[in-house]
Structures are given as C-alpha cells and as structure tokens.
C-alpha cells in the first residue's frame, strides 16, 4: 500500500509547525528574559552598595503568568467552549441523524485507535464543527445542527475525522499552550507600555531622571534594552501572527490525518465545499475558539483570502487550497486502484 502523498503531507506539516512552535518559544524567551539580560548588563558595573539585577524577575514572572494561564484554560477551557456555544451532549440519540453522528464518531475513534469522544450538538443553522478536550483520551466533538442536516454520511464522516485528527494530533493542548503564552506576552506588553506612557508624561520629574542615572556605563545593555522594549511593544501582534501560522499548519495536518483515518479524502473535500458555500457566520461559536473549528466561524472570513492577507492573519488556510490538497490525495488513491476519478 502506498499512501505516499498522504503520509508525506502529514510529515511536512508536522515539521513546519514544529519549526513555528520553536520560533514561538524562542520569541517568548526573548520577550521574557531579554529585558532581564539588559538590566543585568546595565547594573553589573554599578558600585557594590547599589542594585544588581541578578535574578531574572521579568522572565520568571512572565513564565509563571503563562503557566497559570495555560493551566486554567486547559482545565476549564473545554467546558467553557461547549457552554459558550450552547452545545448539548447527545447521550441517547433521538433522531436518525443523531444516531448517525454518534455512530460516525465511534467509527472514527476506532480508526484513530482512541476512546470515543463525547458528542455534542450546537443549535446553530450554520455549518461548522469543533473539537475540544483535556487530552486525546478525554475529548469532545461538537457539530452544528445545520451541518447535521446538510451533509451525507460520508461527508459527515470526513468532518468528524478532521476533528478526531485534531484530538489525535494533540492540537487542543498545543493551541492552549500558545494561547497561554500569548496572554502572558500581552499582559507584559500592556504593563510595560503603560509604564512607559506614565513615565513619558512625568518626563522631567526627579524620579524618572534618577532611574536612568547610572545606566550610561554599558552601551550593549542600553541597546539591548531599547530593542527589548521595542519588541515588547510589537510582541502581541507577533505572537498572534505566529500562533495563526501554527494553526494553519495544524489545519492542513488535520485534513491529511483525516484522509488517513477515512481513506476517503474526496468526501472531506466535498464537505468543505458545502461548508464554504454556506457562508453565514457561526454566531454561537466565539472567535476565541476559531482554531478548534473546521472552518473559520467569523462572518468575514480571512481564510477566504488567498495571498498575503490570508497568509498572515487567517486562522485557517483558504478552503480552495485545502480542497485541492485533498483532491490530490483522492486522485492518487484512484490512480492506484484504477478507479474512476471523482467528479
């Protein structure tokens, strides 16, 4: 069996998102500890009695803040996302469509070799779906009523497989981690920004003057400090862009993993086109949970835009590109099996 394309696409997206995450962590480390290093250099030459910045308070505090944020959003996030969307759990299927949904979820859990996730329905007529959970063994999949009504069994299976792939690839944890770091960076940036503004207003005051008094003795430290403050001011934007880039790679990865689970990429491609055609916004899903959804729930989808804007700001890749990649996998399957090409 040669699923070369399928596995190659997964490997490529895994590698790329790993690089992006590494970049993210490096940037976070610079934002956290860069200032400490600058202060260390600035105060190193100070006389014995004066303050020496030897303990990296800023970095430690930022890391601690990020850890706390991560922990809380990891612990309470899944429940909050489901509650905010107004989702209800399908315990005993009441209609044929619900039975089908529960069955499909079970089938995909089997294909992924994981326990069955809990299944939820969001009372919204738009077509969307998302996954959430603490880890791959305690996860939930939610789909909108509109999606349940509009897709056939194979397409529904493709969508559920995509969500199951997010669970299997640990995307919920990854994105929670990134969101925690993002929050901590935003807090720090906000704090320093406020401090600078207040400091600027009190420009000539004796306190401000006194602080900058002993700093002239280390030019490297001064340059580092300026660069650090500057990066700190743009940090919220940079971290958000990096997180979005990771999110887009994970979407491609989830599409490719879904194709591995169902071995039927064409069905997911068809489902994505239907989701794309139903362009109404998914009002019940908050934009904060966008990275967990199968398509961007926002009203004016940035992911519709190909080219530079979509490449920078969107949480999801353009649907047309996703469909094209899935079709490429379907084409390879058809070629291998000598079957007919999908219409």
């Amino acid at each position, binding site marked *: 069996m040669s699923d070369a394309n399928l596995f190659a696409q997964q490997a490529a997206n895994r590698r790329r998102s790993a690089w992006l995450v590494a970049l993210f962590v490096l940037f976070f480390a610079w934002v956290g500890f860069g200032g400490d290093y600058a202060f260390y250099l600035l105060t190193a030459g100070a006389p014995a009695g004066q303050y020496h910045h030897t303990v990296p308070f800023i970095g430690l505090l930022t890391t601690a803040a990020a850890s706390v944020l991560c922990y809380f959003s990891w612990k309470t996030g899944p429940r909050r996302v489901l509650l905010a969307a107004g989702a209800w759990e399908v315990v005993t299927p009441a209609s*044929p*469509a619900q*039975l*089908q949904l529960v069955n499909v979820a079970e089938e995909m859990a089997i294909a992924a070799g994981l326990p069955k996730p809990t299944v939820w329905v969001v009372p919204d007529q738009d077509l969307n779906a998302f996954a959430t959970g603490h880890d791959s063994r305690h996860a939930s999949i939610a789909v909108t009523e509109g999606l349940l009504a509009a897709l056939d069994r194979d397409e529904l299976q493709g969508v559920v497989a995509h969500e199951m792939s997010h669970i299997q690839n640990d995307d919920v944890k990854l994105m929670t981690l990134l969101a925690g770091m993002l929050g901590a960076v935003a807090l720090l940036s906000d704090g320093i920004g406020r401090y600078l503004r207040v400091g600027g207003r009190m420009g000539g005051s004796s306190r401000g003057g006194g602080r900058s008094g002993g700093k002239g003795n280390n030019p490297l430290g001064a340059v580092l400090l300026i660069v650090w403050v500057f990066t700190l001011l743009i940090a919220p934007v940079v971290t958000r862009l990096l997180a979005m880039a990771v999110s887009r790679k994970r979407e491609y990865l989830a599409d490719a993993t879904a194709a591995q689970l169902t071995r039927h990429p064409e069905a997911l491609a068809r489902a994505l086109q239907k989701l794309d055609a139903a362009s109404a916004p998914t009002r019940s899903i908050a934009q904060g949970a966008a990275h967990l959804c199968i398509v961007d729930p926002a009203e004016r989808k940035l992911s519709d835009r190909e080219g530079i804007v979509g490449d920078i700001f969107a949480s999801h890749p353009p649907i047309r590109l996703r469909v094209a990649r899935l079709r490429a996998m379907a084409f390879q399957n058809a070629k291998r099996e000598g079957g007919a090409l999908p219409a």
Partner: protein
Amino acid sequence: MTTILFLAVLAVILLWGVGVYNGLVSLKNQVRNAWTQIDVQLKRRHDLIPNLVNTVKGAMEYERGTMEAVINARAKAMGAQGVKATAEAEGQLTQALGKLFALMENYPDLKATKNVLQLQEELTSTENRIGFSRQHYNDVATEYNTKQQQFPTNLVAGIAKATPADLWVIVDDQERAVPTVDLSSRPPGA
C-alpha cells in the same frame, strides 16, 4: 580517561537498548489491543445478524437459501480462531450479507420501515467499524513489523521476543467490492 569514555559509550548503548525494547513491547501491546478491538466489532456484527434475519424473515420468505447462508457463515465465523482463519470466515460472512442486502433492494416496502432503517444504519456502522478497526490493526501491525525488521532495532527484536504480526488481508476481489450497504444514503426526515 579511556575507561570513563568506554563506560559512557556503554551507558548510552544500554539506554538506547532499553528505549528500543520498551518501544517494541509497547507496539506489541498496541497490536494486541487493536486485535481485540476488531474482535469487539465482530461480536457486534454477530449479535446484529439474528436481529436482521428476524426482521426480514417474514417479508423475504422466498430468499430462505440466502438467509441460511448468512446464518451458517455467522456460525462459522464465530468459531474461527487466529488472524488468517478469522479473516477468511468473516470474509465469507461479508459476502453472504452482501447478497442479502442486494436482495433487500427488491423489497422497497420492507426497506422503508423504521425498524429496518435503524437496523440498516447500525449494520452500516458495524461494517464501517469492522473496516476501520481492521485498518487500524493493519496500520499498527505494519509499524510493528517494520520496526522489528529495521536496522538497528532488529538487534533488540530478538530480546523483546518480537515476531512479525499477521496482517488482515482481503483475499478475493469479490469481497473487496462488496461493502455496498448503501453507505451514502441519508436517513429520511433527518
């Protein structure tokens, strides 16, 4: 100095060996677990068949031969042991079921009843589950087989008592083509 270097190299090799050994054992258990998952789904299928036969028996009394073939294949499949024998017996059951489903197409009234519709969704799902658990088993077993044959993991494979796992191969083309339980049909009124 040389003794320290020698000991360090030895420690690294030992650690690597332990890691590979544990990896193989974990994969072996995953293969075993994947197999029991297939078993669970096969049992589900075996449990559903009497239900199906009872439901359609009245309406399809002229197809007694086909129904008996299903019942016999089910009995044989339930008694099968080991990967190869089970794969073969279940393959025959799949064929017999496929024939029955094809005949059911001739009874539109029967197909439209709520009971049969629900049963059909359950059977569709069961056939899918068997397929997916088989796919998962084959994926894990292939990974296990590849690992233990690759150098240098194969040096540890003997110590970990790793032997190649049998794959569940679909034998004939007819079976390959059968799973047309009308998978794409949507339940009406959904």
